[in-house]
């Protein structure tokens, strides 16, 4: 099994210091990611769901070393990304790429499309100079971009097309893993479908692995093979897609699933409505972080942090209630 994984993340922690005062001393930490472990299989998609502030974006950025991790390890092709030195890191870059949420700020407005896509190709000498233009055109065609777009500037494109350009830029480096941070949530519904389909087609064609980060459960269900649910810096539940969506166990997952509006006026879901708001990650509740909003909270939840355990069918859950069953 283990050899099949393209990426293994062990106990990733990322704390942002909170600085205050004249001398900017650290007064506390925002525990953005607080010990997260997961694997991504080769050619598979790992979906990461959670609400804003749960640390899902931080995981993506830390994996690319756009922010430095506090501790933990992330093994990609046998090497730990978090321990890489500058040179190694540069060699690693092409293997892991990212697609961003906002298609407007992720393209340099002063660069033509061809250069945006090919910039890093040149940097890493992936193809010879003679083949360069054809290579870029080829990638563009793969991503559903017309070839004459190559000399145009980003301002001429709509959100969907811009997102295609972002995908093309990531793809040009021939990566094996793509971190997609909410790639469709800024797009219109009909365009979302185009981008998702494109991502799926590319996955099949190039045996890509995705880390798909989103707050949109239905999209995650559609695209992922394994799904992890995050709450305040921790995974609370992780399982293969079917298992998780058919048989959710953690109260938070249940609430999250029931909160999604169903586009059918006659279906009236029995909704679990969570009280209150998400606590601040700078000062998370003790014990199980979810106990302040959990409808089934017990005294033990306040005191002891639940263990993230496998309860069969590759279904991992962190909840005290599971042990009682």
């Amino acid at each position, binding site marked *: 099994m283990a050899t099949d994984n393209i990426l293994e993340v062990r106990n990733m922690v990322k704390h942002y210091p909170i600085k205050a005062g004249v001398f900017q001393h650290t007064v506390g930490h925002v525990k953005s990611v607080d010990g997260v472990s997961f694997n991504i299989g080769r050619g598979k998609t790992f979906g990461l769901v959670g609400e804003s502030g749960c640390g899902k974006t931080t995981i993506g950025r830390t994996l690319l070393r756009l922010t430095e991790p506090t501790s933990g390890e992330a093994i990609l092709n046998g090497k730990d990304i978090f321990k890489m030195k500058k040179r190694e890191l540069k060699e690693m870059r092409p293997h892991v790429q990212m697609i961003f949420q906002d298609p407007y700020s992720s393209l340099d407005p002063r660069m033509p499309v061809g250069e945006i896509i090919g*910039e890093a190709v040149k940097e890493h000498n992936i193809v010879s100079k003679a083949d360069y233009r054809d290579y870029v055109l080829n990638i563009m065609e793969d991503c559903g971009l017309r070839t004459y777009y190559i000399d145009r500037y980003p301002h001429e494109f709509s959100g969907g097309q811009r997102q295609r350009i972002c995908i093309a830029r990531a793809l040009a480096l021939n990566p094996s893993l793509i971190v997609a941070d909410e790639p469709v949530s800024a797009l219109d519904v009909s365009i979302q479908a185009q981008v998702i389909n494109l991502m799926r087609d590319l996955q099949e064609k190039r045996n890509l692995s995705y880390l798909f980060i989103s707050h949109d459960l239905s999209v995650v269900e559609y695209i992922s093979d394994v799904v992890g649910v995050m709450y305040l810096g921790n995974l609370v539940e992780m399982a293969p897609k079917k298992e998780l969506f058919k048989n959710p166990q953690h109260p938070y997952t249940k609430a999250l699933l029931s909160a999604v509006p169903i586009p059918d006026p006659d279906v009236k879901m029995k909704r679990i409505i969570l009280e209150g708001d998400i606590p601040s990650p700078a000062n998370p509740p003790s014990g199980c972080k979810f106990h302040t909003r959990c409808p089934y909270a017990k005294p033990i939840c306040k005191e002891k942090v639940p263990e993230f355990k496998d309860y069969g069918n590759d279904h991992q859950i962190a909840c005290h209630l599971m042990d009682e069953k």
Partner: protein
Amino acid sequence: MAEIQSINEQEVIEHEKSQVVYTPGQLVIKRFFRNKLAILGLGIIIAVVLFAVIGPMISPHGESEIFYKNDSTGEIFSGTKEPEKLKDIANVGVYVKGEMDSQFWLGTDANGMDTFTRLMYGCRISLMFSIVVTIIEMLLGITLGGIAGYYGGKVDMIIMRLVEIFYCIPFVPLMLLVSTMMVAFGILPEQKIYWLMMIMGFFNWSGVARMVRGQVLTIREMDYMQAAEAGGISVRRKIFKHLIPNAMPVIIVMASMDLGSFILTESTLSYLGVGISTPFASLGTMIQAVNQSVILKNYLNLWIPPGIMLLLIVLAFNFIGDGLRDAFDPKMKR
């Protein structure tokens, strides 16, 4: 049904191909030239530059050429070109505050020099002065601000404290001091102007640095910079291909505004007597003539033209700056 879509596809491709493609730069230029005030500003500046550069070549008089008048013959002549005529000491006097006529379009000033010609030289020096100061200021400000913004941390801390210190220095008293020192060290008037340029440039970089730092900080957090980082793009390329082109609009706008404001500062200093000194003309030294109440009242031709010139130049630079800002960022307009 498939064919209708392919027909449409063809239509779209043809339509898109027929579109005129503009680069962001071309778009900016197009928007700039749609702004009437900006065009006016550009026109004024071009006119003033031509006036200041070509004017002296055409003008028959020199910058510090003194004219004399022989009272008995009524003849007016140049002291440098026809020195032999000066010998008639009894009748010859400096042609002071001469009237406007075909030879002296704006008359002569209190030293017997041609005002119109001096106006040309004045514009030339003032423009030169402000351009050089702006360049010095920008070089210092962009470098330091860029370093502070890009590297952050301690470097940023140090540079920003430096900026704050420079902000606290009272500029005019400092210039008074510098001027006195220059006199004490016996620096010649023709060298004084270079010293002034350097000192002014050196004491004005802080505003630019602060602005550039802010700009770099925002651009650095943009997703495309993150994407460049993730693509392993080298630091040099990141700075020169992404950071600087995207910070350029703000820098250009600021530079165009500063060009105007330095002309104003230079005039203030010259007016106070700490800037450029006679015999060299600058707009400020020319306006300084107004200190004599006789001139203020009776010889409007001596100080109004340089005043208007000053007003026009500063206004024009501001129009251009505003026009550029709107052209770079059309959303800012409202």
